[in-house]
């Protein structure tokens, strides 16, 4: 049985645990404000807020309900637009801002924007215009051209920036009626729910679901009834911690967990800039690192990122392998059915790191080609280097030859040129909807060069 709070109501349901939250709220609870646009997390029309008890507070995140099994709602607070609407047809500040800015035309996507912006109001992000817009980066609108929505987002953030700090945003939001009064009581109600529903140990790890952001896109119908183990809820697997010279990340840490982690921020100064290129806010809020790894997509952004960190993965049976050893062939993994990833480890001393990605649309798109590199240098000499690329082989590719070539070399035009030539010999891109093979070759050459431009301000005169 799954038990959670939907708006102001506690829900117990025996529906298949793989039922999506979207279908549940629309067809079982008759809450029709949440819309179906694409069912693959790419439009945001079905965005809801998910509140999770976190030590002594409830943290809210926006998520696309089309990719979220109700199992992942267990012991959480799910908020749809009906859960924030005020009585007597009054509008919340977020709703009013969208109306005032003319930010709604056909209206079909609008609720998604309302929910994402409301999420921005009650989460811990800085209340700037930039972050308000960032909160709606997963919402697609076909009518407005977004300029009016930008104006609405800026209006919302400017109303909050004066009063809100990182810790009191939920309080302020309740005070200002952005969310209703009952939100104040959710913390205790979730605590009770958690107490009542102790975490069960993972029994049968054959079908493990993290955030569901890929499984529910590719195999929606079978997922509803799949005998799945949901790791998303497992807070033991969520932490990001320093352990000696290593960083250890729980397998079900989300991309957002990385983004807000002070440890990660200190290691990767461009963390926000780079992760902005990876899907969208609601997907980053759901997508887990391990999910990205085992999905084994040849263009997995986070996989390429961690390949370049020379990361290792630790399975539940404590077996540890390099991430690069996980990939045997297209979607073929060096792991048994009984194994699931528990921890991801990498050396915390990262001197230079860069991530590059190009897709048809810069943000909220799947890479045509991506690449990451980490380097250790001394006096312009490369001591250690790990490079990886996606979209150029059947697997996310650790660039073994290229990395080996670069070790010990001076950083120079000719080194980059030569490395690029070797690089071309270890890739085998194919033509598909994301680009022709020759484009991907050319693009990787450019992105590989871009690493050195970004990291060493390199001249790209050629």
């Amino acid at each position: 049985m799954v038990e959670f709070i939907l708006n102001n109501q506690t829900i117990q349901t025996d529906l298949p645990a793989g039922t999506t939250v979207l279908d549940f709220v629309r067809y079982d609870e008759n809450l029709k404000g949440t819309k179906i646009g694409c069912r693959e997390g790419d439009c945001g029309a079905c965005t809801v807020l998910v509140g999770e008890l976190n030590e002594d507070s409830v943290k809210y995140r926006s998520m696309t309900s089309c990719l979220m099994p109700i199992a992942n709602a267990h012991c959480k607070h799910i908020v749809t637009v009906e859960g924030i609407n005020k009585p007597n047809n009054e509008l919340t500040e977020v709703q009013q801002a969208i109306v005032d800015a003319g930010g709604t035309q056909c209206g079909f996507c609008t609720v998604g924007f309302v929910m994402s912006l409301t999420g921005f109001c009650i989460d811990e992000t800085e209340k700037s215009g930039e972050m308000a817009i960032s909160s709606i980066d997963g919402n697609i609108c076909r009518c407005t051209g977004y300029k009016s929505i930008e104006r609405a987002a800026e209006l919302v953030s400017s109303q909050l920036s004066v009063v809100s700090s990182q810790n009191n945003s939920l309080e302020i939001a309740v005070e200002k009626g952005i969310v209703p009064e009952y939100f104040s009581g959710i913390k205790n109600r979730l605590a009770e729910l958690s107490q009542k529903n102790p975490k069960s140990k993972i029994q049968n790890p054959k079908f493990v679901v993290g955030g569901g952001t890929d499984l529910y896109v590719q195999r929606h119908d079978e997922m509803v009834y799949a005998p799945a183990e949901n790791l998303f809820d497992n807070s033991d697997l969520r932490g990001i911690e320093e352990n000696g010279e290593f960083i250890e990340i729980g397998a079900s840490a989300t991309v957002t967990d990385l983004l807000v982690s002070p440890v990660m921020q200190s290691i990767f100064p461009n963390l926000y800039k780079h992760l902005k290129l990876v899907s969208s806010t609601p997907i980053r809020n759901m997508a887990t690192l391990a999910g990205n790894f085992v999905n084994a997509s040849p263009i997995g952004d986070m996989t390429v990122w961690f390949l370049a960190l020379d990361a290792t993965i630790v399975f539940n049976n404590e077996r540890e392998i390099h991430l690069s050893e996980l990939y045997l062939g297209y979607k073929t993994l060096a792991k048994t059915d009984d194994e699931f990833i528990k921890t991801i480890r990498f050396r915390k001393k990262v001197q230079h790191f860069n991530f590059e990605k190009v897709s048809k649309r810069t943000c909220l798109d799947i890479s045509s080609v991506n690449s990451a590199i980490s380097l250790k240098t001394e006096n312009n000499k490369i001591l250690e280097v790990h490079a990886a690329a996606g979209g150029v082989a059947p697997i996310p590719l650790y660039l073994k030859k290229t990395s080996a070539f670069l070790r010990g070399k001076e950083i120079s035009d000719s080194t980059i040129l030569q490395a690029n030539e070797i690089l071309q010999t270890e890739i085998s891109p194919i033509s598909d909807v994301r680009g022709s093979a020759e484009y991907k070759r050319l693009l990787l050459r450019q992105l590989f060069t871009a690493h050195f431009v970004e990291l060493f301000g390199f001249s790209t005169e050629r």
Partner: protein
Amino acid sequence: MKNVDSKSHVRGESVYLDDIPLINGTLFACVYDSPVAHGVLKKVEIEEAEKSKGVVKVILAKDLIGENEIGNIFHDEPLFADDEVHFQGMPIALVLAETEEQARIAARKTTVEIEPLEIVTNPRIAFAKNDLIVPPKHFKLGDSETAFKTSKYVFAGRADVNGQEHLYIETQGAYCIPTEQNGIKVYSSTQGPTAVQRCVSRVTGVPMHLIEVDVQRLGGGFGGKEDQANAWAAMCAVGTQLTKRPVKYALHRMEDMRMTGKRHPYSADYRIGLDKDLKIVAYEVVFYQNAGASADLSPPVLERTLFHCTNSYFIPNVTATAYSCRTNLPPNTAFRGFGGPQGMFVIESAIAHAAEKLRVSASEIQQKNLIESGDKFPYGQKAISEAITSWAQADEKFDFAKLQEETDDFNKQNKFIKKGVAVQPICFGISFTKTPMNQARSLVHIYTDGSVAVSTGAVEMGQGVNTKIAQVAARVFSLPIERIKVHTTNTLRIANTSPTAASAAADLNGRATLIACETILERLRKLAAELLKAENVSDISFLDGFIFNKNQPTDLDWVTLVNEAHLQRVNLSEHAHYATAGIHFDWGKASGHPFAYHVYGTAIIGVTVDCLRGIYETDFVKTVHDFGSSMNKIVDYGQIEGGIVQGIGWLTMEEVVYDADGKLRSNALSTYKIPDIYSVPKQIEIVPLETDRENPAIFNSKAVGEPPLMYGIGAYFAIRNAVRAFNSEQSPAFVAPFTPERVLMNLYSEAAREMKAGK
């Protein structure tokens, strides 16, 4: 004045097709569609599907009681494939089951045997085989052949522009309910309720007066639901007819993308002749329209391509030919601009080509050839032009030379980031080019509490037409907008409607509403004059719910007057009709006066290209745009901004990809990208054109829906200019969209050639 729906939109309380409360016993439908683009349908195996859990019925072509035909203009499109399949995604069978999930599972259990036939996806190949939807269309003005002989410069080339997926966020769908005497009530997400009614009538054999089509609103249409909403409504209606139960089908996104047509891709050959002063003296163009498997709206789309083949330029000698070529793709259809943008892309390509060869700026040629009032378009209509005015005002406000200079300076200082600018004038004719469609009706009731209900033939799809219609009634009656409700578009209340399309819905239905309201008001005025013992009926006026006599307030208020009218048996309802005057067109002569008026405007667009990665951003779109005296600024600015972004999307990142087998590869939102919030222009500046000219549309406004889309063409040429600033050797082919791939391959044309050669 905000959109009247905005409050219920932000609260999630607006009702779309999938939100209509279900009636007990509703069945859910799912289509089984052809996995092959062309072939002989030897066998359809539905036994497994029929046995599948929850399945009530599986419908094939042979089960139809009426005709198996949904083509509106030409009868060339079956509802279900019968003997042949003509595109991947062509419906073959319809499964009806107790739940949506059961219907989907069962549909997958259907199998077919298809003997493959040759697949054609390229319109030029279809043309070579003479496989045309309609005979070719021609426009001829002057004598281009002679003019080319005397032209100082002549350039010939080719331009290819791809299609565009509508991507309304609400997918297609319908919900049918049986009514008495074998009637059917149809809820449909359609821009054309009458088209749906006609289509349902044909496939069921039930006469139109027993079929009620009702449309609350659409979650986006953009042309995609003008004709292509018919099939789903027809299928649900057939299901209802055969099972006597309500049937609903709301398409999944991938079904929608796979089975529906898109904006037409075009390939074109052009020849342009200029004199020594850069005046265009001759233009020849041949368009190959990729129509898809059946006519749908391809013929009128083709015609509008011709109507706009010279954009806002006057060219004295024009020969334009257009072929509608049949291919094995889903039938392509209406999309904002309706063929016009494709015609304009080609003339802009020809101008850019000439400018490049002559080493002048394209804007110099553009400016020298703008159409003036009195000049003739190639179809004989004389222009009442704002082309020069809008250009001059835009140049004055935005300073084209300065923007160009800043761009050049920037490019001198930066090697790996290049900027580009382009000027984009537009000219778009308003009216359905099929003259009989330019009519509309409105039904207005005043109830005894003084509130007003309006119904028209216009469909609300976000463009704010209901808001404008409510404004008309509110203005005539001088009532607050809350006292007016514009109701669903319903074929029982308003019959024989034209689709909501061609930017004309507010013009036509607004006018009809104006006539209806004024007719009722005149009756009330007479009555008020009697009650107030006024000297003249014309002394009576209405203001803010009160009746004035000779501009003096009286005690008589609106509600009292309305009640008195009812007691005295004065008619408080009116059903009015409006037809646009003075338009006509004769295809025999390919000449006439098809448009009530034209919309003009001039934009300047600036982009930045990251020449290391081959990606780009739009920095600004600044436009002086002619939308008359706006009835509603929020609505109109929203239409302009939205149109610009949709146009830029079409020519940059939105790439419809079919493979050689006719399979749609860009079949989901993960593979077909429309602009997101980060990819839109950083700045959109809209300045209304200042003009004293009277506009023929309602309250001196002008249509605003389609024209702004065409500013997006400027983004293409701005990117092209930036690419050439980096790689001046390269002359990028006129192929749209300008995806990051095309950008990078043109930036590094030499390396790209090497990579292609496998080096």
